[in-house]
């Protein structure tokens, strides 16, 4: 009414807005939901059938705020041209896995800085991919690769030990310090993947200075149902494919069970001009869980296994720096064999098992109490090209067992909303099998961790919400390490750490390093809803990361890098102060997010060459660890345009710069700037037949440290420069796809998708792919996939 009386010209206001308010999980009506139109201040409540109605509305744009005592509120923009029927869905405060994801009808409405999500629809298109590949679709995330089949996420320039991955509530412990160790996650079992950069991250760890990735399984509603999905994918590059299936049975009494299986197989991959010999993959995953959800209490038992056999490019296996010189200066890989599915040496063989037992009770005084016990077993074998009796033995055999016990309380506190407090215990044991006959890359060790945290929010007004978190972590590590006597003496460890010395065995010394760490972390964020469609999110946090076992204890030749890596016992924890601001705009036709960030890291641990060592094999560069004060800064931009009902256009841009603060020397392996565009056009609404084209442009990284060195080449009888620093040129890739929705069988829905990745068969190399020294990246790949939900 108000709008009409101040209108610039007389308008008729006869229109009505009505519909139902529905619970997202079981489609039941929600009575007593309050619906408020901002522009007119009209309010109404939904009735017993969930129905609501506004009358005498003028045409125009309106913002609806919908609230219900048991649910999280949502905000919706609508355009009213005539009488409109609009149903509104709310989600019950569905707390599972100590995490809340808020969904508005238009997608995700994060409460504080950047909870970016890959939702179920996006994941089902990507369940054949690795976690690193799937996450690289989000702005600010790139990949650290060892060939195309091994990748791990880099979040704003940080990866490996600086990123924490939580899978179904269990923190992934799988030798993540290794740049060639991909995270052991089967996306086939995931319903959503979230990237958390706000205070909620402190529930999981204090050392995730890069970020926390949360992989969540399917949320199962409390009702009788039997459903699942079957995914099939075949691809031309590698002549292989993937298949995955999931089945869920639930009952109205609260029982549920889920079973997952998946299998992936690829032969040698293909670059535009040659085959990448020995890059095949053979892996499978299994998972099952059984639980009871009675709202007031519940429990869940889960087990999963992921096993992978991964070939490493034959041409990347080197004996010495001379070999690396020959490889880098050759325009094609030095070893190219005919296509094969065989996975020969060098290769990785990893098995990861997780067992978890969770339970929760809703109590009056302590709110919801969650208790979780989990056990993880990671067994990693790496096979090298060896001689004699050792030809078939692995060169690396690491057995890592981790147990953790987590308790989280969520009491109702007067002045703090969403308050949670908790304690995490962890015990970890690593054994390096001596049967390999190769000196242990990582020593035997055991480790205790205790973490205590509290997180919460305070709503000052609907437009101003503050979130905060505090955490303390104590960590104790106890290792038995054999050092080369020559190195122990060279570093004067006998003088600096005399208490670690146990005994001398001639060429080796036995030592028992023990370290205790006590760290504190905090985080705070503010969300300011400036206008209905604009918000500003600000987050500041301090994280601490202890040096990992590779940074402390490495000692030896890293074959595929043709260099000797040596850890440093005196490393101290990193302290990282992070700031980020996100400006978000969400209206009917555009979702825009602009997010600059700045990280100030003291005692940043980096590895760099410090000299050249002569050995019987020839020269090797020696890489040591050093701590410095660093800064990483950059900006991420995301725009999603809904140009018409048929056309959507997405853009992404990310830029990261990393330097040592004092010397301004660039940090190594900082991702180059990247810009992606995606245009989708719906040809016909029938079957939702949509054609899409994607453009990915990666700039050349022009800021990098110079780690080049001279190596003696006997044939040339001279010292030649080995260039391992210069990043490759910029490159541009185009992907095209066609997808449609079908119903092949009654009561099922299928998504059929044809895609051609690297449509132009462009020849390129990526700075962050360690294979770039030896071979080009993937050529054209034709893929067909069918995802069926039943």
């Amino acid at each position, binding site marked *: 009414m108000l709008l009409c009386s101040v209108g610039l010209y007389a308008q008729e206001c006869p229109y009505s807005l009505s519909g139902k308010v529905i619970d997202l999980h079981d489609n039941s009506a929600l009575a007593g939901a309050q619906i408020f139109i901002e522009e007119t201040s009209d309010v109404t409540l939904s009735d017993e059938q969930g129905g609501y109605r506004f009358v005498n509305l003028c045409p125009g744009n309106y913002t609806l705020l919908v609230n219900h005592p048991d649910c999280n509120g949502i905000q919706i923009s609508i355009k009213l041209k005539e009488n409109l029927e609009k149903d509104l869905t709310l989600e019950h405060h569905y707390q599972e896995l100590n995490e809340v994801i808020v969904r508005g009808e238009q997608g995700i409405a994060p409460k504080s800085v950047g909870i970016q999500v890959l939702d179920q629809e996006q994941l089902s298109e990507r369940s054949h991919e690795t976690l690193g590949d799937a996450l690289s679709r989000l702005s600010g995330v790139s990949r650290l690769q060892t060939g195309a089949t091994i990748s791990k996420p880099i979040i704003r320039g940080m990866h490996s030990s600086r990123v924490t991955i939580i899978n179904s509530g269990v923190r992934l412990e799988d030798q993540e310090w290794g740049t060639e160790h991909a995270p052991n996650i089967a996306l086939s079992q995931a319903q959503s993947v979230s990237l958390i950069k706000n205070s909620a991250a402190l529930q999981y760890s204090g050392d995730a200075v890069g970020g926390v990735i949360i992989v969540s399984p399917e949320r199962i509603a409390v009702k009788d149902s039997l459903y699942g999905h079957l995914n099939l994918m075949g691809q031309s590059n590698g002549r292989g494919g993937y298949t995955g299936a999931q089945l869920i049975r639930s009952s109205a009494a609260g029982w549920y069970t889920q079973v997952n299986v998946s299998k992936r197989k690829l032969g040698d991959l293909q670059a535009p001009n040659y085959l990448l010999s020995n890059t095949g993959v053979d892996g499978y995953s299994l998972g099952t869980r059984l639980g*009871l959800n*009675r709202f007031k*209490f519940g429990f869940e038992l889960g087990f999963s296994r992921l096993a992978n056999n991964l070939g490493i490019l034959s041409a990347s*296996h*080197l*004996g*010495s720096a*001379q070999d690396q010189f*020959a490889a880098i200066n050759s325009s094609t890989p*030095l*070893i190219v064999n005919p296509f094969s599915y065989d996975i020969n040496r060098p290769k990785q063989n990893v098995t990861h098992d997780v067992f978890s*037992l969770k*339970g929760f*009770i809703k109590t009056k005084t302590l709110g919801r109490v969650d*208790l979780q*016990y989990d056990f993880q077993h990671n067994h990693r074998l790496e096979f090298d*090209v*060896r*001689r*004699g*009796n*050792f030809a078939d033995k692995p060169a690396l055999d690491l057995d890592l067992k981790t*147990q953790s*016990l987590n*308790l989280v309380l969520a009491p109702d506190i007067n002045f703090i909303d969403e308050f949670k407090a908790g304690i995490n*215990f962890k*015990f970890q*044991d690593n054994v390096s099998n*001596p049967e*390999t006959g*190769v*000196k*242990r890359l990582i*020593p*035997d060790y*055991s480790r205790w961790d205790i973490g205590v945290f509290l997180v919460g929010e305070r709503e000052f007004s609907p437009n101003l919400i503050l979130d905060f978190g505090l955490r303390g972590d104590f960590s104790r590590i106890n290792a*038995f390490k*054999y050092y*080369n*006597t*020559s*190195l122990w003496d*060279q570093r004067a460890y006998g003088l600096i750490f005399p208490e670690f010395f*146990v005994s001398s065995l001639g*060429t*080796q010394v*036995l030592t*028992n390093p023990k370290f205790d760490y006590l760290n504190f972390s905090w985080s705070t964020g503010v969300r300011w809803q400036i206008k209905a469609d604009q918000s500003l999110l600000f987050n500041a946090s301090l994280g601490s990361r202890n040096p990992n076992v590779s940074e402390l204890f490495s000692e*030896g*030749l890293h074959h595929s890098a043709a260099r000797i890596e040596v850890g440093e016992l005196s490393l101290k924890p990193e302290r990282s102060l992070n700031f980020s601001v996100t400006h978000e705009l969400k209206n009917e036709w555009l979702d825009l997010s602009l997010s600059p960030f700045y990280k100030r890291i003291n005692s940043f641990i980096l590895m760099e060459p410090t000299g050249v*060592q*002569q*050995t*019987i*094999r*020839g020269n*090797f560069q020696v890489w040591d660890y050093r701590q410095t004060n660093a800064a990483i800064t950059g900006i991420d931009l995301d725009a999603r345009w809904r140009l018409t009902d048929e056309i959507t256009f997405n853009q992404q841009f990310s830029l990261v710069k990393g330097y040592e603060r004092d010397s301004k020397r660039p940090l190594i392996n900082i991702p180059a700037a990247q810009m992606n565009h995606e245009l989708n056009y719906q040809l016909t609404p029938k079957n939702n037949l949509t054609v899409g084209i994607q453009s990915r442009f990666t700039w050349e990284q022009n800021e990098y440290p110079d780690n080049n060195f001279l190596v003696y080449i*006997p*044939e040339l*009888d001279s010292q030649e420069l080995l260039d391992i620093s210069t990043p490759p040129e910029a490159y541009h890739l185009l992907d095209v796809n066609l997808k449609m929705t079908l119903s092949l069988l009654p009561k099922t829905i299928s998504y059929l998708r044809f895609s051609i990745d690297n449509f132009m068969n462009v020849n390129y190399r990526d700075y962050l792919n360690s294979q770039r020294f030896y071979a080009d990246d993937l050529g054209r790949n034709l893929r067909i996939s069918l995802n069926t939900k039943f």
Partner: protein
Amino acid sequence: MYFNQILNFKTLKVCFTLFMLAPFVLSCGSDDDAPPPVINEEEVITTVILTLTSNNGQEIVMTSQDLDGDGPNEPEITVSGNLSVATTYSGSVRLLNETVTPAENITDEVSAEGTEHQFFYTMGGGLNLTASYQDVDNNGNPIGILFDLTSTSASSGTLTCTLRHEPLKPNDGTLSGAGGDTDVSVSFPVIVE
């Protein structure tokens, strides 16, 4: 219904207490373990010995010894004497692992896997020597454990002995043409007088 009777709060409280104790029970045995056994690498090559014998009984031995493997100590290189001009020497190479006692002879393994190995002898710095192979593997390609070195005029320079693992065989006799992994690359200072 039977399950409902069991699943009340009391039972759950008991269960939770048990769960809290579980990891302590499970991990109790893992502390205070004896240290793990030492690993003495059997594949490491610490010593390369080239023995050259001329037909008039002159013997020259060249040794490169690096007892700490990839460790910081550099290889120790010794050359027992100078070569004579216009002489052919029959040579042999021996690879040892001297971290164990008695020292292990790696040359035997190389010989047993002859088709997957090849030694290369490269001259540098103007050294006037030519090498030729005097042995073959099961496919008739050279291995290089036995070789001849023929000197021409007085000169000095370096003789580099390289062992390649899984090179391309047959190959053109050059290091770049053969490829493979370098297992040994030692350079000796040599004088021909």
